[in-house]
């Protein structure tokens, strides 16, 4: 899951000279993930992993790293 997320983020949303060096806990917001990017990322995750990510849960703690995203998507999946 993290690989798919990472691939989408660095091919569509953020430029990084060496995406492989971007760690799972590195800050995506500091790397340039903006409000539009967050929405596109959520739509990608919902489609790709078949989950619903509620708008009320769109907060920094859920989207600021690959690990945070992974945890959020996993939690949402368990609820369904």
């Amino acid at each position: 899951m993290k690989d798919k997320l990472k691939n989408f983020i660095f091919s569509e949303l953020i430029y990084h000279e060496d995406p492989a060096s971007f760690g799972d806990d590195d800050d995506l917001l500091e790397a340039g993930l903006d409000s539009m990017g967050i929405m596109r990322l959520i739509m990608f995750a919902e489609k790709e992993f078949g989950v619903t990510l509620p708008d009320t849960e769109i907060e920094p703690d859920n989207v600021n790293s690959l690990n945070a995203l992974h945890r959020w998507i996993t939690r949402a999946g368990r609820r369904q």
Partner: protein
Amino acid sequence: MTAATSLLFNPADYFTYVLDQEIRKAGMPGGYCGFALQLAGKPDLDKLQQRLDLLVTKFPKASARIERQGKRQVWIPTGQRIELERHQAKDDDDTGRLLVEIFNRHESRPLTFHWIAGPTGGTLLLNWNHPLLDARGAKIMLDFLTAEQPERFEDSASLIETKLAQWSLWKKLKLLFKAKRHNDEANRSDSCLPTSVEQGPQKLELKTRNFDAEQSKRIAGLALQHTGLAGRTLYYLGCFMRAMERVGPPHARTGYCIPYAFNLRRQNAPTPVFGNHVGCLFARAPRELVHDRKALFVHLLKQHTQVVRDELDLAYLPLMRLGQWLTPSRYARFLRKQHSGNELSSLWFSDIGDLSWGAKGFLGIPVTGLTMMCWMTLPPGLALLVGQLDGKLSLSYSYLSPAIDDVWLDAVIAAMDDELLENSPR
């Protein structure tokens, strides 16, 4: 010049060209935009000129002219040098006067650079015609001019065409009809307009509002609270709708409609430099909802998330590709007119995002301020450009005079400050 050297417009270039033509048709210079950087000192202007020369060599489109070939518009590189134009200002007021004067000139070149020397430091103005590149591209071009490794900067294919090529014909058709339905919906409610006069010669004027770091932080916190992490732009749009409603729109109709762009470029990417790589979205709200601050932000956020969920952000891409085959005047009618025949946009808006030249500055000189400007159609005759320089929020209002009443706009700007900082009684 042979046809092989011509560079075809992409769908978003043509979209902006159509609006450029509408502005020219009304007797104004065209779809020009400007970034003015206030610098704490004088940069090495010879070095800057060398970089401008390199820009033309590396990106011939930088000094090209527009030509029609068949039914399409193309850029024909001229190879002409971009001369850094130098001006002298007596003081800050004089700098402001010169900025407005330069920006009001009728221009045929797609890109010009100006250095306005002041008593301390000066202002670098980049003035560009929108079909050439979008605001994100302009920022990349400024980075190119100061980069230690300019060879990193390359042009690439249109991101819109690349995206369209990934979709099947059926997906494109599905999105096209979605976009058409969405547009039809947007055209049903009549938009409030800020104009009091819509005839006669116009001059573009500027008003800027700069917030300090503490105020900017407070506004960012309020945006997060009201429109969440996914909607900072919506906070500015909602605040503006409320500010205009509080003062009273000169043309009061049923609601507000403000188009805003989303950029297909990756954040921080040094490529592509030229071309427009944007889609279009609308923030819409009926007047009665604008009176309720909390409900307005809930509505705008819900509208925005629904649009992204329905892929309406991407739906405009096939529509724009089809638009390339329409004449400018026919396309303009489609873009601007509501079912009532009135203008769709209550305001032209762009959120440039965060800018920083950091400790290195621009060619080694600290950047202390930023003013953004753009021409727009009449109506609405008013544009709001938002950007953050080193975490400090800056709002630049470009407006047409006498179409927009100066006293009215001052009142709207004061109300906007209150709305952004949540100072207003609710």
